[in-house]
């Protein structure tokens, strides 16, 4: 057994998990605070340092919540599948935790070996393959609970996640095409010096599609149909309580971090930012700051948008996002060939044309789908 390699791997993974678990706690606080302020409330502001009157803007709330979750009774419904009821929250957490290792985060304590341990050539493929397991966990939870609401939530989640996986992957394909590599570190390296993919028409379109699909993949509002409180209680985790629920919660937020991390890697230049020449470790800060910017937008959208209807959700994926992302791949392919010519005039022309094509296609698709909406017929009970 190669103990040195094992230690290197531990050095790489353990701090990663600790950092993201801490960030998870902070994010729950941030989300509650931001949503409260958006809704003209104050949000958690009581819990601070225990046994004192210091409240620290309620920053102790996540810790208090965690302790509460640990001590709560773990209820398994009668007639539920006990084994899968236990496995589902674990399976919901593990894939999101796994893919965190492949984000190109250059922590200063990493040595060459520990970096190499996670220098996977197919990182992007690996990411999508592993996060696809989330769907299984969600459906497992819905099935094992023996509850109609849970099963409905699980089925909604499967339909939603399978539909949105396709535009998610197709928009990531553009970056892979441009860089010519599936390696996350290399993709990030290709964007150094403000050469981010989001600063091009096709990259921007891909980023928007990716972000919307990521919202749906992580069951965030406005795509939180699998856990729609007003319709199906809490969806697939209706029957979960105590620490199992906390695991689901953690898994959901870690998935948010992971998919935001991938978005940052693919489109927002990874750890690229000002001041890197002086202080190389700043790249980690930039990376986390970009993740948090995306998370903040997610929270902001959650405070703004109402939940979609099921047919709207599926229609948006199949009738709008899918054609647009396929068209975007074509545009990106032509643009790549145009860029190979290395001519400023042609590049500018390409940009203008692709901008026009993408915007025209988006509004065309919008118009096409809008035309089918008829005025609503009201039917009253006799």
């Amino acid at each position: 057994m190669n103990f040195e390699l094992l230690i290197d791997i531990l050095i790489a993974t353990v701090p990663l998990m600790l950092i993201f678990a801490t960030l998870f706690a902070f994010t729950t606080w941030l989300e509650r605070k931001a949503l409260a302020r958006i809704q003209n409330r104050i949000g958690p502001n009581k819990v601070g340092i225990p046994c004192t009157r210091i409240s620290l803007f309620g920053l102790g709330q996540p810790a208090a919540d965690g302790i509460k979750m640990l001590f709560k009774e773990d209820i398994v419904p009668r007639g539920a599948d006990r084994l899968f009821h236990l496995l589902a929250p674990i399976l919901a957490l593990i894939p999101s935790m796994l893919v965190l290792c492949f984000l190109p985060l250059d922590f200063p304590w990493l040595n060459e070996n520990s970096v190499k341990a996670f220098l996977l050539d197919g990182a992007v493929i690996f990411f999508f393959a592993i996060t696809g397991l989330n769907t299984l966990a969600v459906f497992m939870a819905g099935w094992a609970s023996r509850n109609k609401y849970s099963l409905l939530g699980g089925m909604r989640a499967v339909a939603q996640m399978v539909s949105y996986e396709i535009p998610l992957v197709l928009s990531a394909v553009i970056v892979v095409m441009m860089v010519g590599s599936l390696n996350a570190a290399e993709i990030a390296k290709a964007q150094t010096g403000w050469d981010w993919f989001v600063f091009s028409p096709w990259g921007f379109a891909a980023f928007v599609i990716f972000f919307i699909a990521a919202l749906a993949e992580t069951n965030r509002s406005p795509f939180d149909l699998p856990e729609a409180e007003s319709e199906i209680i809490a969806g697939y985790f209706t029957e979960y309580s105590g620490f199992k629920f906390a695991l689901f919660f953690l898994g959901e937020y870690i998935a948010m971090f992971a998919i935001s991390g991938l978005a940052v890697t693919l489109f927002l230049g990874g750890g690229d930012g000002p001041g890197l020449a002086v202080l190389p470790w700043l790249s980690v800060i930039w990376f986390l700051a970009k993740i948090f910017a995306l998370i903040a937008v997610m929270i902001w959208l959650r405070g703004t948008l109402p939940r979609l209807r099921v047919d709207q959700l599926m229609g948006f994926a199949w009738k709008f996002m899918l054609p647009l992302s396929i068209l975007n791949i074509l545009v990106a392919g032509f643009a790549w060939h145009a860029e190979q010519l290395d001519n400023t005039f042609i590049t500018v022309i390409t940009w203008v044309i692709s901008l026009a094509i993408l915007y025209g296609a988006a509004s065309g698709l919008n118009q096409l789908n809008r035309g089918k909406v008829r005025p609503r017929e009201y039917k009253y009970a006799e």
Partner: protein
Amino acid sequence: MSILGGGIFKGMAVTLRNFVGSYINKKERLPTNDYSWRPDGDLPQGIGDYPKEEGEQLSDTTTVTEYSRNFPMLLHDGGEPMDTVRCVACQICERECPPQCIYIEKDYDENGKYIKRPAVFDIDVSVCMSCQICVEVCPFDAIVMNSQFELSTPDRFGGLLVRRDDLLKSNDYYHQIHPEEAAARDQKMAVEKAAKEAKKKAAAEKARAAAEQKAAEAAKAETKEGAE
């Protein structure tokens, strides 16, 4: 032509205004935290410090804003509560209550005769949804909303069931917490009572007139008979 997805940005601008505004203009953007009834009339330092001491209550409901309502109470007109209670145990509210949180039993005296008051009147706090429908349907103005909001209890079962004697509040207390509404209700009751009395009087008048007529007719018949 509007920009694609422009509505989302409009909505986001609204929420952003709320978010930023809540740090700048607290009084405008945090209207639910209206602490204007407090002596200093301002947001207290560190809201949410309530209760400061264990067991502390803001139970002086007269300080809550006048239109707040939370949970029903039974009115009596002063004196010994069960003697002047307005409720006649007609059970209309029990039947109308959407979540069915009211339970009423009629009161009978020792001869088994129904006396118009409730023997049992329970409302389950954990079920009540503060809809005020019981108030709307009551023909006797016996049940109205209280603004008492500190109803939490350490007893999960018995403590959440409010009994008749705890529900009974005097009309004076009602005037204290909801002056406008109570005055309107009193006036309405007075009008109704006057109408009822007028009706009664009219009926009595009619009865008397009828009796008089009958008597006159009888007298007439008698004289007729006498004449024959």
